[in-house]
């Protein structure tokens, strides 16, 4: 089981939850997590596929082959407030 922290709009898309508990076993990868999200929270899964939402593991941006181990800190990161350099 892995707990996925949610931020910004991903909380709304998950029915106003702050985190999700997903059934994963030690050593599965980010792509496995995305499959679970596709099944349970397709709106979030779609944003990950579009690369609008990033997955972080232990506070670093992960890619689909990144392994997730017991105790790892996993989060879904929607686009940051700053956006482009033309933002401010």
């Amino acid at each position, binding site marked *: 089981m892995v707990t996925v922290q949610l931020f910004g*709009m991903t909380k709304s898309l998950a029915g106003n939850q702050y985190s999700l508990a997903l059934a994963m076993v030690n050593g599965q990868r980010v792509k496995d997590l995305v499959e679970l999200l596709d099944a349970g929270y397709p709106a979030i899964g779609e944003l990950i596929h579009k690369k609008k939402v990033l997955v*972080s593991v232990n506070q670093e941006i992960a890619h689909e082959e990144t392994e997730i181990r017991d105790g790892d800190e996993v989060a879904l*990161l929607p686009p*940051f407030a700053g956006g*482009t*350099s033309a933002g*401010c």
Partner: protein
Amino acid sequence: MLKQSASFVLASLRGSTYRSVRLVSSLAAALLDGLFEHPAGHLLVGCGSRELRGKKMSTQQPAGDDAKFVRVQREDFSVDAEINRVRGRSKRIGGIAIFLGTARDRSKGKDVDSITFEHYEGMAQKKLREIRERALKDFDIIEVAILHRYGEIGIGENIVLIVVGAEHRAEAFRACTWAIDELKQITPIWKLEHTPEGEVWVEEHP
């Protein structure tokens, strides 16, 4: 285009709205901190390489420096106090550039009543520390402070502050521009705008 209200204040050592007594106490605190934080730096007396040596040590600075010069906090900050904290680092500083981002009442043509900032505790601080360390390494500057607020912020209030101290202005400007651009690219902070029509997570960035 997303436009966040901002004031670009350059080397703004005047124009304070804060009481001078507060400024003096912050300056004193900054000087005291300087005495205790960098014993190695203070041993290099009368030597032109003092700041350069300090820079080389930047990636190994004690956690105390990060806590003072990189902060994510709910409460407002004093621009004067932060300028003085940077200024107190070295008498070799001859130019200070700052960027102050403030909350604007319009976004994409719509009214905004207030903004709530959410951050990823831990990762946000980590990214800001990385930005500080890279700025100290890649630019010819002496110190940089990076602060960002979270929670609900009223229109016109402070959101984010970058203060860069350098020997000369050109590098201070360059590092300041780079730091705020980088902050906006890599720091996990999100913005919820409260508008008359409801709440909107800012997510699109043309």
